[in-house]
């Protein structure tokens, strides 16, 4: 019981003197772990050789079968973030982080058992379902807490946490390879032991985050901070209940803004290695292509912090305008870089595109906070994450199928991506239009207590009711 009460929201209220700068590392503890999902592909090849060891044998799992593990996890991420978003918001960050850690680690343990008995369905259940729930809960758990601690710079605060998600693969990838090398023997691949080790490491890491996280005391505000007196049109002081928020056109416009921005980036990220080699035959080796992928991941991570922090100064809407305008121009330039054979120009285009891909993820929580208030921002963010799940399907399908279609119709490999680039640019134009249509949320969606009196910073435990409740 005492353990469970330790997780309560009431036990996470910060005492006077608590530094808010402890909260970003707490959030990073979560995001640096769950972001391992981006590095899951390092297990794909070893898992096709669990029986054959040196090469795939009859009965070994195929790559398409293994591809479903990641797809299920990303799908469950979106759905669990949507379903449990309100629970995360009302139960407090510690309970959510603790549960996320438990689910994430269980995902690895169950998957290790699935590998041990060589049953892929158990791996789907482990990493896909349990891991996916851990991903969903973990992804949204620190968001509203950070926004409440940093009302002066909400973009920077959430950008720091979500940067961790983008950077996690840098740790997970070499760590997984090192662990597999340690556990492998001439008769054993060592994936199951690696999964157990990662599960233990991630459980400890995430529970440390849960232990150190705090929420601000009622009425707290940063020293010297005074909320702006003149209200900006697109920054509300009111809160919108989560299930009212998803009825607003603003929510769905932001959903499409995120979905289109992610679709444009995710397809490229998955095909970056092959694309760089095929567009520059003889100039980009396999090793160099791997370096290119690493560089993209690095800018994906840095863009999360840079763009989200920038959005605190230029506004969220303008930040997304930057993504869509600059992104459209850069995608249109990519075929030109191929035609002049400039690897440097090609790399420059894509590192900027990737920074904006990451920036889109990191800026959106603050965009939601501006539109719907602080109170249910985590839960609303949970619903918005379904845009990511959808983009995870659209992006790779678009890039892969258009490339195949082009090659089947006699287009040289070096030019097979050109049409894809123009389609991606077109998607960003649609995103620009969606972003342009976003206006302030109508007052009828504001929570009842907010209608009576404007509030400064509201606590979750307060008695405001959903509109119409």
């Amino acid at each position, binding site marked *: 019981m005492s353990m469970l009460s330790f997780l309560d929201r009431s036990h996470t209220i910060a005492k006077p*003197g*608590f530094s808010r700068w402890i909260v970003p590392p707490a959030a990073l503890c979560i995001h640096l772990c769950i972001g391992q999902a981006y590095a899951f592909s390092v297990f794909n090849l070893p898992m096709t050789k669990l029986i054959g060891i040196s090469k795939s044998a009859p009965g070994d799992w195929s790559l398409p079968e293994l591809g479903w593990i990641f797809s299920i996890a990303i799908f469950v991420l979106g759905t669990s973030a949507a379903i449990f978003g309100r629970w995360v918001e009302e139960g407090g960050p510690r309970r959510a982080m603790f549960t996320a850690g438990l689910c994430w680690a269980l995902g690895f343990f169950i998957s290790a058992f699935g590998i041990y008995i060589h049953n892929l369905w158990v791996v789907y259940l482990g990493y896909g379902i349990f891991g996916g729930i851990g991903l969903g809960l973990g992804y949204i758990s620190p968001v509203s807490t950070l926004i409440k601690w940093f009302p002066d710079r909400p973009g920077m605060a959430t950008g720091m946490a979500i940067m961790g998600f983008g950077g996690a693969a*840098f740790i997970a990838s070499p760590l997984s390879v090192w662990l597999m090398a340690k556990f492998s023997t001439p008769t054993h691949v060592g994936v199951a032991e690696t999964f157990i080790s990662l599960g233990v490491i991630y459980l400890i890491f995430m529970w440390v985050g849960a232990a150190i996280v705090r929420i601000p005391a009622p009425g707290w505000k940063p020293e010297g901070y005074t909320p702006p007196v003149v209200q900006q049109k697109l920054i509300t002081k009111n809160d919108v209940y989560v299930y009212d928020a998803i009825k607003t056109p603003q929510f769905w416009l932001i959903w499409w803004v995120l979905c289109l921005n992610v679709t444009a980036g995710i397809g490229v990220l998955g095909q970056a290695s092959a694309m760089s080699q095929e567009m520059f035959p003889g100039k980009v080796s396999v090793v160099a292509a791997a370096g290119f992928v690493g560089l993209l991941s690095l800018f994906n991570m840095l863009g999360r912090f840079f763009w989200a922090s920038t959005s605190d100064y230029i506004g969220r809407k303008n930040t997304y305008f930057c993504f869509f305008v600059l992104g459209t121009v850069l995608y249109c330039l990519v075929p030109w870089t191929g035609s002049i054979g400039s690897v440097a120009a090609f790399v420059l285009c894509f590192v900027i595109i990737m920074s904006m891909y990451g920036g889109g993820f990191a800026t959106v929580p603050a965009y939601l906070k501006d539109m719907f208030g602080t109170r249910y921002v985590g839960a609303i963010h949970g619903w918005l994450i379904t845009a990511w799940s959808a983009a995870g399907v659209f992006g790779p399908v678009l890039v892969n199928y258009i490339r195949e279609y082009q090659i089947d119709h006699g287009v040289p490999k070096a030019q097979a991506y050109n049409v894809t680039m123009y389609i991606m640019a077109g998607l960003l134009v649609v995103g620009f239009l969606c972003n342009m249509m976003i206006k302030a949320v109508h007052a009828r969606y504001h929570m009842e207590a907010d209608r009576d009196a404007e509030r400064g910073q509201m606590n979750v435990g307060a008695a405001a009711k959903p509109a119409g409740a």
Partner: protein
Amino acid sequence: MANTDQQNGSTTLHLVLAWGFVGIPLAWGVLQTLENALKLFQ
């Protein structure tokens, strides 16, 4: 109720430990990635 950092709740040591706990693994990972990325320009 303005907050003044580091009165009796959080010390500099707490901050260093917390940021080190997440920063050191991240910095290690970034360095590994940069080493690989340099091969693109060799």
